[in-house]
């Protein structure tokens, strides 16, 4: 299976991607994750204002087959959620790197937390190892 990896993103081993946009971290799930899940039918998003720590399960993505947690890759406060996914969760399958779940206003530890995430190449290697 040829998964797509975006070299401009950082990845968690639990299959989330994170991107710094100005001083905000945008989070979604990888192409690998959406493919493993198959048809996504439901997305549960966190509340705006929720304080989260890196690794916390803050959202849920459910497919025909399974429910999986979406973890916060960095610590901070949820400042925006993608409500479009509530009505059209299939966007996650169609465009996993365009379909963000939530945005985090990160804490001061963001630099080290982002550095701890994987590069696209390292994540691709991780996916291949676990296939």
């Amino acid at each position: 299976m040829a998964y797509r990896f975006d070299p401009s993103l950082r990845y968690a081993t639990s299959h989330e991607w994170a991107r710094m946009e100005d001083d905000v971290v945008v989070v979604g799930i990888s192409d690998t994750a959406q493919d493993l899940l198959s048809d996504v039918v439901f997305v549960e998003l966190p509340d705006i204002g929720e304080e989260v720590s890196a690794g916390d399960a803050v959202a849920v993505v459910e497919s025909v087959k399974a429910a999986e947690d979406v973890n916060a890759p960095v610590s901070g406060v949820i400042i925006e959620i993608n409500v479009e996914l509530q009505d059209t969760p299939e966007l996650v399958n169609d465009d996993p790197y365009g379909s963000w779940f939530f945005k985090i206003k990160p804490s001061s530890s963001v630099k080290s937390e982002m550095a701890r995430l994987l590069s696209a190449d390292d994540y691709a290697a991780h996916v291949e190892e676990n296939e």
Partner: protein
Amino acid sequence: MQRTRLYESHVELGGRMVPFAGWELPVQYPTGPLAEHHAVRTAAGLFDIDHMGQFTLTGPDADAFLQAVQVYDIGQMQTWDAHYSLLCYEDGTIIDDIFLYRLPEGWMIAVNADNRAKDLLWLRSHSHGYRIELTDISDETYMLALQGPQAETILQRLTDTHLAQVPARTGLRTTVNGVEMLLGRTGYTGEDGFELYLPAPAAVACWDALLAAGKADGLLPCGLAARDSLRFEACMPLYGHEIDAQTNPFEARQGWTVSLDKPDFVGRDALLKAKLEENRKILVGFEMIDRAVARDHYEIAVDGQIVGHVTTGMKSPTLDKFVGLGYVLPIYQKIGTEIDILVRGTAKKAKIVRRPFYKPRYKE
């Protein structure tokens, strides 16, 4: 882990292989479970269900034995009739759900993959004194299911038998793609269709011929995920979910299979009692009011008290609604009753609705 003879074919088609009941089977193909589901509702789907077990039962006492070990009155069945039934323990709980085919020489019994060894052992333990021959033919018999409104048209291209004259819930012996086999107008999807019981060595050729014959009609190979969502919408029970050894047929709303007026059979006393007394629990259908997916084993609550659990839940692809099946205390079974589904610790509102979610469309 066992592999079916179609393992290589599934991998070639891009099937995602997963373990299921001791077998490696495709859970889906690249089209995805939703497309496969819709194909069966609107055109046709082809399923490898070789993991299922088959027994033959013959001998002078075959009918008497079969009457004694399962709940349905087979006296109502003519040669070539097929019927759904249950094996029950003495206490009325369910060993397995099965499909019976009355053949000229005896019976064919189709059973669940997971229960094959258990069923055979149990049947044998009740055979003392009966002149019967009970044979597990699962290894040499291959089972495929062709399901959907276009199934008849597609299969007709591979057989000389006039399929329009074959009613639902009957079988026949015929030649498909040059191979003699038992064909049942039966299935587990809520659609018209056929189940094919063929000699195992012919499996790959038959699978390929069916896929080719149906390509222009929108036939898709279908995996386990679509098989589950299709049977779920039609509210057909799945062993280990809606039915098990803690449940009797009346609780599972399968009382229609139980012929209490036939002569004695294993479980009859307990089932008679179960029918007359109030159920301990009852299977209901529900629809989510709040946004959430109810999944099996989630608890069901009313006013903060646990009153049952979910057995299967998902977004129904045909209805485009979040629905589920589950057991509740009988006082909560009324249509419209509001219940809570405990989803990851949070109560999500749902209400009891009529079953089935999808009304089966058979050719009677």
